[in-house]
């Protein structure tokens, strides 16, 4: 795409800005900031990626992935403030998911161990893991609060903390995985995934684009399951003390 064509895409920013002004939506400033930020951030990332790809150094790949994990942890931890030590729990979860998925991809020779593959795939895995963490923590916090009587019932009958929180934990894991599973059911029918569309537009063979998209979708299914289960089992013990009492607020 030429720079002229790229600048013409700003028409798609002008339309909502005009609508906002006409209807007094008050979103003009936010949309302008978002547009400027996205241009700067993406261009910066583009140049950084070019540098990392050219250098072919594992150290830069590692630094890029580490930066993604730090940013994703920072964003997700706000939703789990009620859970003690949530920051390191999210960080450990993201690292575990990243190591597991890259370990399988590289270990089984599914994708090569180069920056061109590791960085974009890590971005998708860590980004999805972050969203899953937020969905899980939102639901889990609400479940624990809403079903406190059930938790105390099971504790009062001589159940362990794990037994007392089991139903809330399972409900939260299931609820956080639903969007991933549902979007997989309709993929290709309702929407063409961004990565696949991008490849096709860039001139790739559609069948090859589909193959990569399938790889990513299966990868994200593992990401969803492992993130919610791992984070769930790391989080629930901090809701109780050594005397198996439910800690409140």
């Amino acid at each position, binding site marked *: 795409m030429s720079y002229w064509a790229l600048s013409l895409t700003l028409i798609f920013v002008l339309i909502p800005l005009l609508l906002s002004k006409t209807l007094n939506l008050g979103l003009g400033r936010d949309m302008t900031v978002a547009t400027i930020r996205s241009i700067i951030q993406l261009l910066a990332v583009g140049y950084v990626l070019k540098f990392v790809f050219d250098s072919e150094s594992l150290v830069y790949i590692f630094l890029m992935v580490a930066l993604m994990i730090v940013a994703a942890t920072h964003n997700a931890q706000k939703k789990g403030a009620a859970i003690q030590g949530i920051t390191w729990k999210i960080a450990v979860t993201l690292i575990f998911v990243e190591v597991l998925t890259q370990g399988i991809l590289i270990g089984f020779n599914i994708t090569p161990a180069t920056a061109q593959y590791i960085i974009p795939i890590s971005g998708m895995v860590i980004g999805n893991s972050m969203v899953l963490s937020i969905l899980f923590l939102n639901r889990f916090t609400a479940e624990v609060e809403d079903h406190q*009587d*059930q938790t*105390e*019932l*099971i*504790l*009062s*009958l*001589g*159940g*362990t903390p794990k*037994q007392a929180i089991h*139903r809330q934990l399972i409900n939260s894991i299931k609820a956080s995985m639903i969007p991933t599973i549902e979007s997989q059911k309709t993929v290709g029918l309702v929407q063409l995934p961004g990565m696949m569309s991008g490849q096709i537009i860039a001139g790739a063979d559609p069948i090859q684009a589909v193959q990569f998209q399938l790889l990513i979708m299966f990868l994200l299914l593992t990401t969803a399951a492992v993130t919610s289960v791992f984070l769930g089992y790391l989080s629930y013990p901090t809701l109780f003390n050594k*005397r*198996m*009492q*439910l800690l409140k607020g």
Partner: protein
Amino acid sequence: MSTQYKPAIHFQHVDYRIGDIEILNDITGSFPQGRITTLVGPSGAGKSTLLKLCNGLISPENGEIFVKDKAIGEYDPVELRRMVGMALQSAPMINGTVYENLNLPLELQGQQLSKEEALELLEDVGLKGDLLDRKVKELSGGQRQKVSIARTLVNKPEILLMDEITSSLDRASKLEVEELISKINRKYKTTIIWITHNLQQALEIGDYTWVMMDGQVVETGESSLLEDPQNGRVEEFVKGVVS
């Protein structure tokens, strides 16, 4: 409280607070073994908190609690909660059938309640056997409360804590539950600690009573104290409740 009975539970200078709010202040006294003790007093007196301390769902800020002469902290929490059962006013249930709820205490131990045992429990609490497969959400308030008591009995507790279990029941159900508790106490020699707002109930069912106000125990003794309280505040409370 001076009685000839051994204490099932003994409180010694127990304080409990939530943040800056003092819920219980310097509670000392005993609940006699094998007897029914009622806890009465206005709302917010700290009665429910005191029950949760007995069951180990919470721990005191200061002081000691002894269950059968052993400090509560020396018990394994699971062992303690199976020995000290608890039934609540809200009678919380897990989704499912009456049988699934009755089976819950054993399920938590990796065991299963036989159908015969479940039917026997229902009979014990005055419910018909055909309720066994009924969904708990279809039960009346009285039936729920009885299932909750039956479920607590599955662990064969030596001490039974009950928090206003009859307050939302109609008169007939209330009488049935009162009779049931007396029967459990007679049949199994279970120590009962029962929170009630109904002073008549405390007089008729309880052997002993604790009157609590503002986080403190203001008078204890045989239940008849409610007819002739020595403490002026208790007298006012009794008059207020009766009138």
